[in-house]
């Protein structure tokens, strides 16, 4: 059972950490947060050169075809370094779904461009009412008057990477009631993207589709596999996002330990106070429990248990990330409440992560319902 990065993954991770340390000071993070684009195109091209954009994809589209451990390694270092580029949005979410699509005409053309850094994608699936459930979709794909064309209508919320994407993949319910996913150009007529800056500086978008006309061959799936594949893709993305969160939590613990050892009050380092020592221990416990559940989920990827373990992981990162973030701010006191230290930026990153893709409440309900269903099935 794998409970840590293997040698190859570790080497890759060390390389990544050095890359992130060199490129992303906290000043750079702040500057990118405030920039119009919200990330650096130069960094994106460097990701392409390092092969990061092709990691999970097969070699015939220019990728490296490696396992999710490498994606976790990247995400952990990106979380630790507060990286803002839309990596998860493009590579893991949209790219992940595209790579599994039946429509290989689309994936064979688009994935090489994505891998080369020439194309950015986003996956528009969350809706206001879905509250984290990817199968709960109000957006529709109906037949238009022209040939086999389709009309997309609906609204998607907080679509990660929407403001920088060239093309998007949207989930919608077809006329037969089945879910499918469709590829659309971001400048299509009737498509309105309102760019958003999330609390942690990440860019996203609110997207409205008003009779957006697309041809039938823009559909990713042909045989009803869309729902299962979408869920699988989101589960993989949650694994990677949790690794990002864990990187941020580890860094907050490290920063808090340093601060408590050096900050003097009442004539002694504040780490001398037992109440703060226990707090630091509890933060460490939260990080380690999260790490265990991360690997527990990684181990069963591809099996029927994966969804359950990922839901546990996401629920855990929700509460543990919130606890570690809040306590890191508390231990730093006033200065933790400002933009001047990175502590607040990690706290905000973890706050956003909890709410994306099904928050803790959603995951708990999902797990409880799943358990009830298993009991019913067994009876």
């Amino acid at each position, binding site marked *: 059972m794998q409970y840590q990065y293997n040698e190859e993954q570790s080497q890759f991770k060390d390389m990544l950490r050095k890359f992130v340390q060199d490129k992303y000071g906290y000043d750079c993070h702040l500057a990118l947060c405030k920039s119009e684009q919200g990330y650096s195109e130069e960094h994106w091209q460097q990701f392409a050169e390092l092969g990061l954009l092709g990691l999970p994809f097969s070699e015939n589209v220019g990728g490296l075809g490696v396992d999710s451990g490498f994606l976790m390694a990247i995400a952990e270092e990106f979380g630790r370094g507060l990286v803002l580029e839309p990596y998860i949005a493009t590579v893991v979410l949209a790219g992940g779904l595209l790579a599994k699509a039946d429509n290989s005409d689309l994936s064979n053309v688009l994935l090489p461009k994505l891998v080369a850094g020439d194309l950015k994608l986003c996956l528009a699936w*969350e*809706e*206001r*009412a879905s*509250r984290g459930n990817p199968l709960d979709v*109000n957006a529709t794909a109906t037949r238009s008057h022209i040939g086999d064309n389709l009309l997309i209508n609906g609204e998607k*919320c*907080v679509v990660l990477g929407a403001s920088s994407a060239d093309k998007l993949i949207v989930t919608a319910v077809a006329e037969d009631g089945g879910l499918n996913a469709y590829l659309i150009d971001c400048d299509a007529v009737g498509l309105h993207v*309102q760019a*958003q*800056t*999330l*609390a942690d500086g990440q860019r*996203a978008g*609110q997207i409205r589709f008003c009779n957006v006309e697309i041809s039938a061959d823009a559909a990713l799936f042909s045989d009803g596999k869309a729902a299962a594949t979408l869920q699988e893709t989101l589960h993989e993305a949650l694994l990677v996002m949790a690794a990002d969160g864990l990187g941020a939590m580890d860094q907050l613990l490290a920063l808090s330990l340093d601060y408590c050892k050096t900050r*003097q*009050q*009442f*004539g002694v380092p*504040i780490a001398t*106070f037992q*109440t*703060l020592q226990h707090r630091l221990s509890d933060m460490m416990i939260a990080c380690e429990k999260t790490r265990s559940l991360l690997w527990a989920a990684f181990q069963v990827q591809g099996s029927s248990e994966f969804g359950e373990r990922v839901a546990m992981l996401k629920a855990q990162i929700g509460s543990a990330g*919130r606890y570690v973030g*809040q306590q890191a*701010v*508390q231990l730093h*006191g*006033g200065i*933790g*409440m*400002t*933009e*001047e230290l990175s502590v*607040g930026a990690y*706290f*905000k990153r973890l*706050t*956003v992560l909890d*709410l*994306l893709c099904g*928050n*803790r*409440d959603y995951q*708990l*309900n999902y797990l409880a319902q799943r358990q009830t269903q298993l009991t019913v099935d067994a009876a």
Partner: protein
Amino acid sequence: MLIEDQHSVEFRAEIRAFLDVAPSEEILEAGRKTTSVFAPFKETMAWHKILFRQGWVAPTWPLEYGGTGWTVEQRYIFAEECNRRGVPPLLPQNLQMVGPAVLGFGTQEQKEEFLPGMLSGEDFWCQGYSEPGAGSDLAALKCRADSDGDDYILNGSKTWTTYGHHANKMFALVRTSSAGKPQAGITFLLLDMNFPGIEVRPIVGLDGCPEQCEVFFSDVRVPKRNRIGEENKGWNVAKYVLEFERGGSSFGAWLVPALEKLRARSSLALDDSGRSVADDVHIQRRLTELEIDVRAVEHTEKRVNANLKHGENPGPMASLLKIISSEVMQKFSELQLDIVGLDALPLQTAALAVGSDIAGFGEESDMLVMPYYLNTRAASIYAGSNEVQRSLLAKAILAS
């Protein structure tokens, strides 16, 4: 709730009639857009001035200095009605912090010089207590005031000075002696922010807005007649004021209607099917748990206030109130974040400025949820961290 007696009913009606007409649109907008304990400056001071003209600005002050003479119950009714109407909470510096210091320790001359401006809102006073090296350990402060004839000469810096960039006056704790215990050499001074040698640097908070400031002093001359209390006895003044700051609170008056609004928000339809977040039993339970906490805070406040004789301060119960009210506000801010969900994620600082014509995403009340959550983390840090409060409380109960 108990049925109010006739006097209270009439009093409530009088307050309500005034609140219906007195605040301007801008003042109400500022009230809605308050995401911190410190409401937007300009509109809040405009509201302060309106209340002053009405004679209601300082319910906790003695009648002869501009107080209202209201009973504890009437003060709570006033706070409840203000929250119901949604006016911004007044900034506490003038009325709850420096005012009580001057009332308690100032000379007759100082009272006449300083109290009228605090009361009317012509002056805004900021607090110069914390320093980079003196936070929880406030007595470690180093900002020096050296005696020079009729003046002190001030050198050093202060931090976490809320709205220092808006203030024209400051009340400060400074070091006048390094002999003896650290608490023994501290003096309470009043100064003008336009005295030569003062520099103010705003600090940007987690929500992207400047609320706190750093203030630097280089050879700032402060007349000795601006000293409150005796030289080296400023700690007593500060302690007295801190207990005022911690006691006499009415967070319950804010929390009860806020919880009602949150329940309503959780019942809003998410789409055409009419389902809502409140369909989730788990959310219902969390709301109910929070309500119990809110009621416990409300009635602890009311109980402490009711048992307090005029001019008394609440002692260790002040620490208890600070802990439970800050923690219930934080719990509230978290549940609100979980209920609003994705709609809370975009941080929309520009759209939230009072008078802004920038249209944001979604409902205005949803935009406030994230900055409120972020800002409310400060509640367990400021005015004596909750760790310090728990130590004070432990000391008090172990000693008894």
